């Protein structure tokens, strides 16, 4: 195994780890995938240090350690499935190391975003179905549908324009509260609480909370606590916005 091959193998492992962390995988899967690719590529003593904010990896105790800085946080499970498929193909010797690297960089570069309208429609439908499941209130269905869909559109716009992490949720929750109060004020719906409960569900940090719990249980303390903090900050942002709305509207 030449030095170049070794470097490429370490790069491939790092790229896979980076894509998985960015798109919201739990750390056990990240470590598992990286060590698996390394073993299949023939690296002898691969070592990786993975956190949510960056990855360091080296192999064979050579001077070939490489670092990746991870800044992006997304919840894009399609890319996780794609990385999983590539790792499987590489383990079954269907593709070479170079092809695996190329396919991984394709996964990293191509956008898998759904159309905005579809996402808003999904958020709207989820708002009213969860409102009915949680509260049993069937009168305010249309109001929850409209509030949930329009506020999620605003959320997507905020996130894509300003790229801020917690203020996007804060502003969206403010808007949900304001819209729900307005709708009830004009007599188009009956209960503010139910509409807010339904509409807020599309903002809830489900993936970070699940991952935080699993990371802490599996022994990845740094990642688990970082993710827990991120999830709590998001929840606190939503809660503060709701406090403001309920207090002053």
């Amino acid at each position, binding site marked *: 195994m030449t030095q170049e091959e070794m470097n490429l193998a370490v790069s491939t492992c790092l790229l896979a780890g980076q894509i998985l962390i960015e798109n919201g995988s739990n750390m056990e899967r990240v470590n598992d995938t990286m060590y*698996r690719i390394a073993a299949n590529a023939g690296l*002898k003593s691969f070592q990786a240090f993975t956190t949510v904010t960056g990855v360091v990896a080296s192999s064979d*105790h050579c001077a070939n350690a490489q670092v990746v800085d991870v800044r992006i946080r997304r919840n894009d*499970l399609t890319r996780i*499935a794609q990385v999983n498929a590539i790792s*499987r193909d590489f383990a079954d010797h269907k593709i070479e190391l170079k092809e695996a690297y190329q396919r991984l960089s394709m996964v990293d570069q191509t956008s898998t975003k759904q159309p905005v309208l579809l996402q808003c429609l999904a958020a709207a439908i989820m708002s009213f179905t969860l409102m009915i*499941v949680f509260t049993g209130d069937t009168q305010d269905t249309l109001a929850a549908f409209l509030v949930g869909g329009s506020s999620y559109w605003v959320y997507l716009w905020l996130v894509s324009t300003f790229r801020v992490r917690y203020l996007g949720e804060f502003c969206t929750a403010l808007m949900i509260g304001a819209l729900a109060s307005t709708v009830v004020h004009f007599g188009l719906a009956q209960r503010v609480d139910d509409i807010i409960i339904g509409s807020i569900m599309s903002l809830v940090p489900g993936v970070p909370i*699940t991952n935080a719990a699993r990371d802490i249980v599996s022994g990845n303390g740094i990642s688990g606590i970082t993710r827990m903090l991120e999830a709590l900050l998001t929840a606190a942002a939503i809660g503060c916005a709701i406090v403001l709305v*309920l207090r002053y509207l």
Partner: protein
Amino acid sequence: MIERLLIHFGFAFVATICFAILLNVPRHAFLAGGLIGGTTWDLYVVIYYHLHVGLALSNLVAAILIGILSMVAAKLQRQPMILYNVPALVPFVPGGQAYKVVRYFVLGNYGVSLGYLYQVIVIAGAITLGFGLGDLINTAIYGRHHWHAAPFSQLKGWKKRD
């Protein structure tokens, strides 16, 4: 009873699939995720509203079932397990209780607020514990295939210390 279960199944199914769209789950995992979400929510309704065993145990059982069914789906479709268990969890998120914590806190009714906070903590803890237990059961059924680094002192190609 049957009607109520069917209605709950339908709503939980739709909500799970919508959350899966928001998380950008690949399309071929929608049906399995929705079925898992609907089934476990029905089980929760039966246990919580009809058997009255309490909040913690019903959430725990539902979370364990989500873990097991997700692993089955993941093995069948050869996909990562996270595609199934995260969307299926969405009806169990204590959103209503969390909202009521904030609402009664603002109204100055701290006692009621604390009561709901207790519920939120119990549900979150039960779900976390349930996922852990589900993983444990999956390991017992399928075995553990995780890859880890070897300890530094036992690596091949290194001279043994005297």
